[in-house]
Every structure is written in structure tokens, then in C-alpha cells.
């Protein structure tokens, strides 16, 4: 295994910076060396700026020479899904419509990372306007899976998953409305956390479905995600929906102890058909967690019909509302798969949308009360099927059954989005073709610390998160 600087975890790199064993310039240079090697095959970036990143790194190195204490992310190179405002830098949202969009101001989550010392080195590929779980993008080119370029990277935070997996950056922000952090994390073999709705400010981030959008980190390990979440979580005056609840010390929660933890495996409400390789990896993962002291049981989930019906309406209608003006005036500037996906949503009755929102608190109560009385976390495969190829999920092909295959990766993720619950995907194996498999864990509201503790305990006993893809052939 290659142990270059770029192969370090974010926690290791941050620690090396704090000890002054490494400088920010070395980290940035290592990332761009990896970008130069793998980006032509992976296409994880929409833009990057090496000169600006190196200049920022040199400035941080100058500061660290004089400073006694450094902020936690000092000199750490990151890049984010290309949908965050950042003081005049491009934020294309993966679209032709916003291909020259350079919003002023700065998204709160990005600002908090940069104030903690991180260097933003570029904007990452994504599904157009975050619509789609595969990583297809006809405007900037598909983001390809770094483990095998013929397969999907997952989406919609496709570049985030691929860039972290290919060791081009140490971590990334994505957004998750129905699985868009967890799916690329699973496809690319990295760790991705969708926080509780309201835990992280959405100010300055592209909206898709304001009732369900969450900003979350993707990184190599649960510990790395804990460090990133620590920086971005918490109330924000610029986002009235952000929670005022105290932010725990996430890293302090990582003690490896799962004694007494109860994990439920849903009998209903999730994909009924699971591929053999995925099921085997899932069962092995549960055994690892049991080895750390967790107990596992099967559980029936209440309210799943209501949840499924309401979830479908909320995201579709809010998406349609966000794009109404462009759909009237610039429909041809969308990929046909994206405008086609939005188009029928305009026929959904407003009364059903309001009903879906009015039911949300009751459904959460009906679900969370009995479920979290019996278990602390739920576990499922993040994606029930082995990762499909880009060709067989390309809607533009118009092939028979392609819509079903295209939507299939989100079968096990969207349930937690309507409920607003936190969920994490961690690598738990590889299928016979050498592509990653993800384990999804979900918890009660604001259970990020418990999820990170569980994921970290799993990663103390496994090596899946340490595997890196070989240089990707074109």
C-alpha cells in the first residue's frame, strides 16, 4: 500500500500540521500531484485553482511559524460539491444554467471550515442541480468511479465521493436530500454523514428541497467526518432553520465502546432484494459490531407507507418550485433527464404537498417513539444492489427499464430524509468485481455522536476504509 502524504487521513494530516512535521504547502502539493495523476480518468472536479491554493498554503505556513496554537483544520486541503457560495468563486451547481455563476458572500459551512484553517482548492463534480444518484452529468462530463471508471460514482455529491476516495483531497462537503452524501460514499468506498435536518446551516448552499436538504461531510474515516462536522455544526443566524441545540464534542465520543448499543435490522420499508455479495458484507459488518459489544435484532418499522408517500411529494414539489422560472424560460438548458424528471412534478396537487408536510411531525413521532424504544440505531446496506455501470443507468439512452435502474441506488437512503434523521455510510467490503459496498447506520434525531462512535469502532476493527483505488486507467 502506498503511504504518501495524500494517503494520510485528515486526522493524521491535521495532527502532522499541529506538530509542525508537515506544512500546508506540502499537503496542497500532494493533493495536486494526485489530481494530476487521476483526474483525467475520474473527472471529480469542475474547477480547481492550484496557484491560489498554494498561495493560501504558503500564507498559512507563514502564520504557523509564528503561532503558538493552530486551528483544527489549519492547512488541510478540501474541495466541495460545486454548489456553495464562496466569495465570487464558481458555483455551477453542475449545470449549464449556472455555468458562470459566481455568487458573492460565503456559505456558512464553507466559511466555518476556512475559519478553522482549511484551504478550499476547487469545486467538485455533481449531478446537475443535485438531481440524480448516479454521477451522470452531460454538461461537465460524468464523474467516474475511481475503482473502475465504467461504473457510477454515485450521486449527487459524485465528485465529493470520488475525490476523497482517489486521495485528491482530505475531505469534502456534499449535500443530501435523499441519499446524495451516503450513495457516493458507498459507491466510492469512503465515509459519508448526513446529519440531522437543521444540524448544519444551509445558508449559501444551493437549495433542492428546503424541507429535507442537509449539508454533510465525506472523508476517509468516521474520525475525519467528526472533525469536519465539529467545524460546521451549530446554530447560524443566517439560516433560521438551523437548530440552536448544543453541539457535542464529536471526537471525544469516539471511544470504541459499543457495549449496550442496540442495533435494529428493518424487516420492512427497505429494499427487499439484496445482492448476495452485499448481504454477505452486511452480515459480516454486523458481526464486527457485535464483537464490540453491540446487540443486533430484527425490527418492524411503523408508518412506512405514510413515510414513502409523503417523502415522494415533498422533495418533488419543492424541487419543481425552485426551478419553475428556469423551467418556463430555459427548459432546453437542462439535460433532458433532469427537465424530464422535474416536469411531471408540476402536476402534483398542492393539497397533497401541504398534507405531506403536516404529517411530518406525526410520522416522526409514530416512527421514532416505538423504534428508538427498542433500538438505538438502524442498519441496512447503503445500496442493496452491486454498483451498476454508467451505461446501464444513463437515462439519456432511453433504454427499457433505465429509470428504475437510475433510481435504484436511493432505495435504502431516502426514508431517513423525510424523517430528518441522521445517517452514515461506511465502507464494509468489496464485491467480486472489486467495487465498494457500504453499510448504512441511522439514529434518532441529533444522534451524530452515536453514529460516529459506532462507525469509528467498526473502523478500528476493519481495514475497508484504508483501501485506496489504484491509479485509474483512462
Amino acid at each position, binding site marked *: 500500500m502506498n503511504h504518501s502524504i495524500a494517503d494520510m487521513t485528515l486526522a493524521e494530516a491535521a495532527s502532522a500540521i499541529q506538530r509542525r512535521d508537515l506544512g500546508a504547502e506540502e499537503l496542497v502539493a500532494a493533493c495536486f500531484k494526485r489530481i494530476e495523476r487521476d483526474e483525467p480518468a475520474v473527472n471529480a472536479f469542475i474547477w480547481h485553482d492550484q496557484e491560489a491554493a498554494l498561495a493560501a498554503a504558503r500564507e498559512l505556513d507563514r502564520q504557523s511559524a509564528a503561532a503558538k496554537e493552530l486551528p483544527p483544520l489549519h492547512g488541510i486541503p478540501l474541495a466541495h460539491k460545486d454548489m456553495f457560495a464562496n466569495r465570487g468563486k464558481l458555483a455551477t451547481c453542475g449545470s449549464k444554467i449556472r455555468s458562470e455563476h459566481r455568487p458573492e458572500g460565503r456559505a456558512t459551512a464553507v466559511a466555518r471550515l476556512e475559519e478553522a484553517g482549511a484551504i478550499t482548492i476547487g469545486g467538485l463534480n455533481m449531478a446537475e442541480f443535485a438531481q440524480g444518484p448516479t454521477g451522470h452529468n452531460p454538461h461537465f462530463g460524468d464523474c467516474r468511479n475511481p475503482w473502475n471508471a465504467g461504473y457510477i460514482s454515485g450521486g449527487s455529491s459524485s465528485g465529493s465521493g470520488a475525490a476523497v476516495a482517489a486521495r485528491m483531497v482530505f475531505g469534502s462537503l456534499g449535500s443530501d436530500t435523499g441519499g446524495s452524501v451516503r450513495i457516493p460514499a458507498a459507491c466510492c468506498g469512503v465515509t459519508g454523514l448526513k446529519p440531522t435536518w437543521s444540524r448544519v446551516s444551509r445558508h449559501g448552499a444551493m437549495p433542492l428541497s428546503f424541507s429535507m436538504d442537509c449539508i454533510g461531510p465525506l472523508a476517509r474515516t468516521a474520525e475525519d467526518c467528526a472533525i469536519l462536522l465539529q467545524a460546521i455544526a451549530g446554530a447560524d443566524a443566517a439560516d433560521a432553520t438551523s437548530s440552536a441545540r448544543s453541539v457535542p464534542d464529536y471526537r471525544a465520543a469516539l471511544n470504541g465502546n459499543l457495549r449496550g448499543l442496540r442495533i435494529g435490522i428493518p424487516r420492512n420499508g427497505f429494499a427487499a432484494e439484496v445482492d448476495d455479495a452485499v448481504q454477505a458484507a452486511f452480515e459480516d459488518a454486523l458481526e464486527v459490531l457485535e464483537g464490540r459489544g453491540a446487540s443486533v435484532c430484527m425490527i418492524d418499522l411503523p408508518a412506512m407507507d405514510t413515510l414513502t408517500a409523503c417523502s415522494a411529494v415533498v422533495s418533488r414539489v419543492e424541487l419543481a418550485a425552485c426551478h419553475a422560472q428556469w423551467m418556463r424560460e430555459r427548459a432546453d438548458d437542462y439535460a*433532458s433527464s433532469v*427537465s424530464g424528471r422535474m416536469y411531471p412534478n408540476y402536476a402534483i396537487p398542492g393539497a397533497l404537498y401541504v398534507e405531506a408536510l403536516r*404529517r411530518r*411531525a*406525526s410520522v416522526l*413521532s409514530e416512527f421514532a*417513539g416505538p423504534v*428508538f424504544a427498542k433500538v438505538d440505531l438502524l442498519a441496512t446496506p447503503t445500496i442493496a444492489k452491486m454498483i451498476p455501470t454508467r451505461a446501464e443507468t444513463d437515462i439519456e439512452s432511453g433504454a427499457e427499464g433505465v429509470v428504475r435502474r437510475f433510481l435504484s441506488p436511493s432505495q435504502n437512503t431516502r426514508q431517513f430524509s423525510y424523517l*430528518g434523521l441522521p445517517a452514515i455510510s461506511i465502507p464494509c467490503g468489496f464485491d467480486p468485481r472489486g467495487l465498494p459496498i457500504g453499510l448504512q447506520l441511522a439514529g434518532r434525531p*441529533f444522534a451524530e455522536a452515536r453514529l460516529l462512535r459506532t462507525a469509528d469502532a467498526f473502523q478500528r476493527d476493519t481495514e475497508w476504509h484504508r483501501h485506496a483505488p489504484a491509479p485509474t486507467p483512462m
Partner: protein
Amino acid sequence: MTNDVERDGLRLIQEAISFWWGIVPANAAALSFARDVEAIPSAFAKLDPSNFDDEPADYPAALEQFADPVDLP
């Protein structure tokens, strides 16, 4: 017969979108996704009518009600 029903359903959706929103273009992908939308009203018709509040529900308060403790043991 099924095809006629599907075509009628899709045509009604297209007319409704055109009437209410002034959005005319539809493409092959739209027709595929429209089948999912057609299923939405019947899914709602099966839901328990008593299962939501008379007042607009306070969803953030429900999140707080079931929240994990800030400090884990």
C-alpha cells in the same frame, strides 16, 4: 387498454402542467417519470386520515422531543 389509460393519464398531466405553469416541453424521460407521479394520489388515498394534526405540526419540536442526549455515556 392499459396503454390507453396510461396515455390518457399522461395527457392529463401534460395539460395540467401547461395550464397551471405554462411549461410545455415534455420529453421521453418526462413520460417515464410521470408514471411515478400518477401513483401518488392513490398512495395518499390509503393513508390514515387521523394521522396528522389539526394545527400545522411543529416538526423541529418533534426532532427535539426524540433527540439523542448531547453527551453520550
